[in-house]
């Protein structure tokens, strides 16, 4: 079973996304900020990281750079934010895809499937 790490300081977003991805057959872990995500990553390397941009303690771009510096060059990262993608790209441009909040869950599911090299589920 593929594992996804969802990183977001907003409970609502992290929980809803996690539940939807679990329905798609993934195992999902969550973290409330970048530092917490790095700790999780040290325990278990997921197949995909989906991260918010603005978070307390450590934000998404800082976490993404740290992931790359830790040697996870090929670990796909999806960034998500209510801000325009350009603002995110200014800080970190090595992500697989971008989700502009608020997003429809099927859009997220499609992007996740593509990031993991799978066929998107036509029924979601």
């Amino acid at each position, binding site marked *: 079973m593929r594992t996804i790490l969802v990183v977001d300081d907003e409970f609502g977003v992290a929980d809803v996304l996690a539940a939807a991805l679990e329905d798609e057959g993934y195992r999902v872990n969550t973290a409330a900020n970048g530092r917490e995500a790095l700790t999780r990553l040290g325990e278990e390397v997921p197949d995909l990281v989906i991260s918010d941009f*603005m978070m*307390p*303690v450590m934000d998404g771009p800082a976490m993404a750079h740290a992931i790359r510096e830790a040697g996870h060059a090929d670990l796909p990262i999806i960034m998500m934010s209510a801000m325009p993608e350009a*603002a995110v790209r200014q800080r970190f441009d090595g992500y697989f895809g971008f989700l502009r*909040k608020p997003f429809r869950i099927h859009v997220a599911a499609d992007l996740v499937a593509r990031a993991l090299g799978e066929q998107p589920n036509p029924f979601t």
Partner: protein
Amino acid sequence: MTLEAQDNELARLSSGVPGLDKILQGGFLEGGIYIIQGDPGSGKTIFANQVCFSHLAAGGRAVYATLLSESHSRLLQQLRTMAFFDETALPDRMVYLSALNALEDKGLSGLLDLLRREIIARSATMLIVDGFLAVEASSSSEREFKKFVHELQSHAISAGCTVFLLTNGANRPARPERTMVDGILTLSRRDYEARSERELEVMKLRASGYLGGRHAYDIGSRGLTVYPRLEAHFSRPSRNEEFSAERLSTGVPSLDTLMGGGIPGSSTTVVFGAPGTGKTTLGLHWAASGPADEPTLFFGFFESPPRLLHKADTLGLPLRERVEKGLTEILWQPATEQNFDELGVRLLDAVDRLGARRVVVDGLGGFTGSTPSSSRISPYFAALSNELRVRGLATLYTAESRQVTSAPVEMPIDNISSLVENLLFFRFVELHSELRRLVSVIKMRDGDFDATLREFKISAEGLQVMSSRFSAEGLMTGIAHEPR
């Protein structure tokens, strides 16, 4: 403590909310901690964001921490409709963070630690905690809660960070945090029959005076605009009065004669009378007759500018020419649902912008009808009249009586005699099955006037007062007859 340090402690921070700094008498204290309380929908979040973005524009940095269920994406969607919102400030100078995880996982100490770290890491000079009620709900005791507020306050002071705590429950009994913070502002909605008004009230403000009582505010695409209660804002006139003994022509020479030379400069005049007697016509005369170096404002409620210009044309008055030259401005306020204090602000702003020396307020009833509180009318107009006077304006109000011909007549405002210096009365009298117009000067400031009743006519030559006194009996009944 050095003088500089003392000055720094009392440095003020503009709120960025139009009208609010007047109520706060300068703004918030830098490094202060404030509670903004109000029911859902009262505009707390917009208020806080407006204050934040104003602070950013002045070079500050802010952290907006939420303890709410509302998502940041939804919040940003709403804020994008606001003129003050500047997306380029995100995330370097302004950041939205959820602090709910920290609160739920580690309690108040975890939340405090997170806020403290974020203030330092981002060099924040402003912190908003939106959803502060959750902090209170999460505290195990009053002591723990007070300790949290106290420590947050200490961190804020040491970092020079101004803090706003947004919470619901404006009508709750006194809570411990209320004694600790530097200020409390309440946003509420108040119903007046079918009408509802948003109101802001300062409940507490340390180290500063403030305008007490409730002040109206509205929320538009520019955020909140607060209208300080005019009689509180101008409880004393904004400047000293320079007495003027000059007389200004009404534009009707025969009426000037009756008034002992015209309307005194820097004074307040009311022309009072039944509908159709010619009050607006007199206002048009006055607005059209000023010298070329005396801009005039016609602040009307009932007739639109095209109608007024047409009326002036038919009276042979050069009002259109003055308007085209920018010497007279007609500012129309539809007599619909308007904010009483906003009207006063519009009037005062317009006379300042024009540099006007004379103003016509056509339709006192349009003004008074905009307040749901009749007890405010008298002090409001006392303050407004004083303010117009010290700004060097001669003001002519028209006021309508309900009665067409009969007596006694009711004045439109209590104590009107103490509020205005000059009072004219226009009335209809029926004589020989014909309605005749009469004018009488009831009161004039500092000067003789002709108190006799005079008939006047309105024609293509405008308003003209007859030179001979009107002689008839039974005038005060409204139905006159020739003397026996």
